[in-house]
């Protein structure tokens, strides 16, 4: 059975307007109908560009943002139905690792204090002596010396801070860790250290990970299953090796071809699918397939009217799910890409967007306009 089951999850942020009497004039559909099944002991990678809703999805799973619809079942327990009190005690089972280790550590807390806090809150056995022992254990596990217990976050380097963030997440022996861009704020030479640490910890404590990242290479390296998100929905999901060997969704193809490879010979020979224009506004997503406005494989029928479901292709690619009406035809080469002219997209309605997504996903808040070099590829 899956450790985590997500069904038809929706997070819509209301867009309010009016100065004195606010009324809802629309919604930013940050997450719009997502299903997930995550096996215990594996890593599930969630990739997408800013504004696709991946961070919001991660936070909604942890119920740090209340979903507007759907269910999240952790270890057989529907956590969206829990009271706030009950929820607090369930939180020990799943933890989060954040992108910016500086921002996610209270600058006024010493290492000792920040690692003890969850232990005290959940009455970790052993009293204060036990807690002190646990703190040292945790530091050892993430590769920091015991001598740092009295130090403060600003005294550490970025990589060390992220180790502290990971130690804190491990404090209560969680089963699931959701890591939101765990390495993207770090220097390249430090990223590898943290990725390896996450892998080692997974083996050692049989952890389950959901790794949210925009870096496809990082996700590939760490994940067993990878899902690609676009405008609030999952467009493709498959075992990592399959997805990277043979991406089926046009968006995934474009995304992969855009990632620079540190090898000039590969860069010279590979073909690129340059997407035109920018991401449409999640407040007013395109009808039908959300990607059809930028899709080089867009067809005359179905694409702009019918939203494709995420479906498995049992005959051509078992275990590989894709949300595209024409996935088989594209794979078989029956449909070829054509030029795309960037399409006009309405601006996000003015008004206060919820701060939480503004912070994590820049595209949601700003006015979005399309464009791109007409036929630049």
């Amino acid at each position, binding site marked *: 059975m899956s450790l985590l089951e997500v069904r038809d999850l929706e997070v819509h942020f209301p867009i309010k307007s009016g100065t004195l009497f606010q009324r809802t004039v629309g919604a930013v559909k940050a997450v719009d109908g997502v299903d997930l099944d995550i096996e215990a002991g594996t890593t599930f990678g969630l990739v997408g560009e800013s504004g696709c809703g991946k961070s919001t999805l991660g*936070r909604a799973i*942890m119920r*740090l943002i209340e979903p507007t619809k759907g269910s999240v079942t952790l270890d057989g327990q529907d956590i969206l139905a829990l009271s706030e009190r009950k*929820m*607090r*005690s*369930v*939180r*020990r089972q*799943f*933890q*989060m690792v*954040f*992108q*910016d280790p500086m*921002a*996610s*550590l*209270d*600058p*006024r*807390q*010493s290492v000792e204090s920040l690692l003890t*806090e*969850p232990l005290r*809150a*959940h009455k970790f056995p052993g009293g204060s002596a036990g807690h002190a022992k646990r703190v040292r254990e945790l530091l050892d*596990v*993430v*590769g*920091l*010396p*015991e*001598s*740092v217990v*009295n*130090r*403060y976050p*600003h*005294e*550490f*380097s970025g990589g*060390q801070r992220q*180790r502290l*963030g990971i130690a*804190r997440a491990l*404090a*209560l022996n969680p089963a699931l860790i959701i890591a939101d861009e765990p390495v993207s704020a770090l220097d390249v030479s430090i990223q590898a*250290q943290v990725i*390896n*640490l996450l892998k*080692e910890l997974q083996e050692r404590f049989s952890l389950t990970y959901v790794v949210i990242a925009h870096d496809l290479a990082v996700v590939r390296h760490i994940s067993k299953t990878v899902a690609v998100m676009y405008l609030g929905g999952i467009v493709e999901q498959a075992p990592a090796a399959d997805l990277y060997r043979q991406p089926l969704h046009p968006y995934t193809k474009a995304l992969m071809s855009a990632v620079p490879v540190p090898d000039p010979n590969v860069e010279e020979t590979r073909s690129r699918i340059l997407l035109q224009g920018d991401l449409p506004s999640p407040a007013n997503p395109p009808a039908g397939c959300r990607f059809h406005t930028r899709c080089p494989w867009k067809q005359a029928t179905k694409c702009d009217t019918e939203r494709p479901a995420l479906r498995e292709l049992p005959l051509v690619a078992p275990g590989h799910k894709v949300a595209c009406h024409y996935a088989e035809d594209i794979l078989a080469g029956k449909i070829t890409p054509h030029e795309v002219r960037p399409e006009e997209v309405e601006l996000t309605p003015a008004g206060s967007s919820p*701060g*939480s997504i503004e*912070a994590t996903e820049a595209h949601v808040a700003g006015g979005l306009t399309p464009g791109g070099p007409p036929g630049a590829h």
Partner: protein
Amino acid sequence: MSVNEVVAGEPGGPAPATTEAAARPPSSLGREALRRLVRNPMAVVGMVLIAVFVLVAIFAPLIAPYSPTDNSWLDQVRPGQYPGPSAEHWLGIDPLGRDVFSRIIYGARQSLLIGVVSLALGAVAGIALGVLAGAFGGWVDTLVMRFVDIMLSVPGLLFAIAVAAMLGQSLTSVMIAIAVVNVPIFARLLRGEMLGQRGADYVLAARSLGISRSAIVFRHVLPNSFTPVIVQGTLTLALAIVEAAGLAFLGLSGSDPSAPEWGRMLTDAQETLTSAPMLAIYPGLAIVLAALGFTLVGESLREALDPKFRR
């Protein structure tokens, strides 16, 4: 490769030339800020001014050569002629035959008292409202903030005059008046800061750890929101001293007209401004220096505590 090997060379590890964290004693943000503060010459000037001001206020009876209300030198005063500085009277004698230096010294007492008490009252009430709004949000926030908006919409000085007029002329009403003016400043500041901090990642982290709401507010949000409040407090003290002088100047201070007070000294000096301008300049200078001290320290504190200056 094991984790420990990976971090060899980080603090505690065998890094030959690392002068980072390993060598220094651990330092909290507060200590760091203090270190930056004492390195700033502006802050040092401000702190010296404040120290002089506070010491003078506390030890006024020991410093002042005479009582501030002693008018034994009335016989030396003639209309239009007031004795200037001399060995016995460093700053001369005022039209009522009192020693100006002693009055300035005792005036510091009055100013400090008004400043501290009104700041304390205003800050406590403002912080309470700010915490209420910032911690609960929602309709509590709306209610508190509308109330604060109403307070803010009345011009400060007018409000103070109204309070002084309502409660009668006394030192208490001056302090209350100034405090009331300060309440919305603190309330808004703290509430805004708390709302900002509530969205910070470390608050999200604490929530995901299952820390209770009240613990998050009091252990994380509030301490991290306090920096601007401390800065504002210092700046408000400067303002309170000026405001107290202003109210005294308008004749709204205590009922005893002979009490030494910088603002009142200014009022009194008005009448003799042409013949003895120095009588206005001395208390004016005292007000400016005291206010400057707090302003300098406030501004330097803001700089020292600003994360942008943190390295």
